């Protein structure tokens, strides 16, 4: 009798474990980035020609990993970067500021990859104002091959949303990173003081909460969350559990549990912003431009942001883009409401040496506790028109 009961219990336990094993297989608890959605990270150096330039460009940072780009290749000497505005995040990015920042990031990778292939890219930003989807044609001419550490870092650059160590970043490093700004339209300033970081962190937490309390923004954010391996493989874009910077055990547990709802995902994000992102930020960076609603400034700022991210990666540091404040500023503006977050952010930027310029993008820097993870990517062939 006791033996039968034991065998019965064992049968139930094995059945449950079998179901759990299937869930682990289905959600790739092991081998998270082994699928085709991550091939772009493995093969970006394979092609020595202009297609290889595109393979590097698609690995750039973009808001919510929306990858809002399309490319047109004319022969071997011209690449056109186009905006895919259908991938804009609606109420989260009503003026396409973040979209253009992402396009600027792609443009930076494109330029670095062209130089690495002995091609000089002559880039013209928005050459036809009446045709806003044409972001930047790049005419390629033969030149001396220029390898740079920034180019080598393209395949390792990932947004790191995990905790950072309580270790300051050398002032010399911040000076070097700021010196990467080679266009007077875009610059970066650092918020390093305890008071400044606390104020900016508080503002970020409040903005994150405001985003989650705004149902439209919350829904449009959540639409870019890929909660299963199938969704990741199907879309090859968006945010994933693996990209949240959680420990391996917590990531596994999250993958084994039922898919998260929008509201619990929102609560998780606000909690992470409070307890991890702002709590362990060593330094904040603010990319400044004269006019954050000017597409040329957005593209230029995006190029600088990508360059900084690559330089940070090359130094073994981590970076996380944190744009909830500017998302709320744009949301209030688009709704014709009094600005809640604009004035305090402007005051903070001015205290850090902003000199009246506008904040285009914000990020945090630090020494990572654990490495950033790959995000899914549409390969160059899928974004070539």
């Amino acid at each position, binding site marked *: 009798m006791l*033996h039968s009961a*034991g*065998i019965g219990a*064992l*049968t139930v*336990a*094995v059945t449950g*474990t*079998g179901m*759990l*094993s*299937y869930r*682990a*297989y289905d959600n*790739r*608890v*092991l*081998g998270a980035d*082994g*699928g*085709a959605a991550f091939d772009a990270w493995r093969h970006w150096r394979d092609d020595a020609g202009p297609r290889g330039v595109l393979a590097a460009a698609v690995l750039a940072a973009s808001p919510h990993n929306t990858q809002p780009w399309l490319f047109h290749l004319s022969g071997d000497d011209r690449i056109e970067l186009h905006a895919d505005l259908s991938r804009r995040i609606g109420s989260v990015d009503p003026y396409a500021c973040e979209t253009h920042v992402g396009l600027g990031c792609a443009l930076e990778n494109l330029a670095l990859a062209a130089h690495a292939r002995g091609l000089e890219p002559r880039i013209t930003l928005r050459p036809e104002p009446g045709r806003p989807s044409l972001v930047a044609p790049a005419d390629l001419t033969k030149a001396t091959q220029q390898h740079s550490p920034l180019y080598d870092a393209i395949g390792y650059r990932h947004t790191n949303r995990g905790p950072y160590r309580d270790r300051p970043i050398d002032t010399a490093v911040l000076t070097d990173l700021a010196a990467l700004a080679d266009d007077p339209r875009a610059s970066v300033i650092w918020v390093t003081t305890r008071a400044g970081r606390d104020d900016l962190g508080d503002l970020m937490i409040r903005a994150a909460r405001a985003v989650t309390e705004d149902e439209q923004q919350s829904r449009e954010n959540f639409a870019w969350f890929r909660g299963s*391996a199938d969704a990741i*493989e199907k879309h090859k874009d968006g945010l994933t559990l693996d990209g949240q910077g959680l*420990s*391996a*055990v917590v990531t*596994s*547990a999250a993958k*084994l549990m039922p898919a998260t709802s929008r509201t619990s995902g929102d609560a998780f994000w606000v909690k992470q912003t409070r307890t991890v992102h702002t709590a362990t930020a060593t330094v904040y960076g603010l990319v400044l431009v004269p006019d954050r609603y000017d597409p040329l400034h957005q593209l230029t700022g995006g190029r600088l942001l990508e360059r900084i991210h690559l330089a940070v990666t090359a130094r073994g540091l981590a970076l996380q883009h944190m744009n909830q404040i500017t998302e709320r500023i744009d949301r209030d503006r688009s709704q014709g409401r009094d600005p809640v977050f604009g004035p305090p952010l402007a005051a903070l930027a001015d205290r850090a040496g902003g000199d009246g310029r506008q904040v285009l993008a914000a990020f945090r820097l630090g020494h990572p506790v654990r490495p950033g993870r790959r995000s899914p990517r549409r390969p160059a062939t899928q974004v070539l028109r």
Partner: protein
Amino acid sequence: MSRDQAAALAGTAGGLLGVAAGLTAAVWGDRLGAWAGDKQDPTTLGLFTVALSAVALAGALLLLRDRGAGPGWRAAVGAGLLLPGLLGFTTVGRLWWIPGALLVLAAGSTVCVAPRAVGRAVRDRWAGVLTAALGACLVLVAVDASAPLVAVAAVSGGLVAAAPWVARGPRRLATAMLLAGTLPFAALTWWTLVTPAIALLSLTAGFTALRTSGPD
């Protein structure tokens, strides 16, 4: 023609057609759409189907060779035909419809020769069956992992699945197989939470199987 011969024939045909279906999916799966199940990675799944079909084919050939063996053997051959027959429906889409149906038919026919005796044999070795299922779970969890990890999982799963069935040999060998199949892989992938759970259950089910296994 005896029922075993008919089952062996159906199993052989199912196995051969399964190999063909697997190869077709592996080579042309991208172009076959729903016919190959619209899979993200038809090449891997096609090759996996070839391996499954090979297992079924081996079962069918054993049935032809060892007709009249005991109910435990018959249960094992039935499982060797049935499991690939069912799993194939999830790997290569419509290409599996005919081989799958043939293998399920062959498995049913194999068991139906002596259903009560087969049922009793399965019941008597139920802990071993559970252990074998857990060995399969170890492999399943690691299917998408890197090649070295898949290899470790395959060896671990194989050791766990086979351990209860070598109990008639030296008991120490079966024990060593269980420990070697569970502990290293669980230690290597402890953070998944699943593999330690499988290891714990495998040891429980495996040692129960070893304790209760008697002469066949």
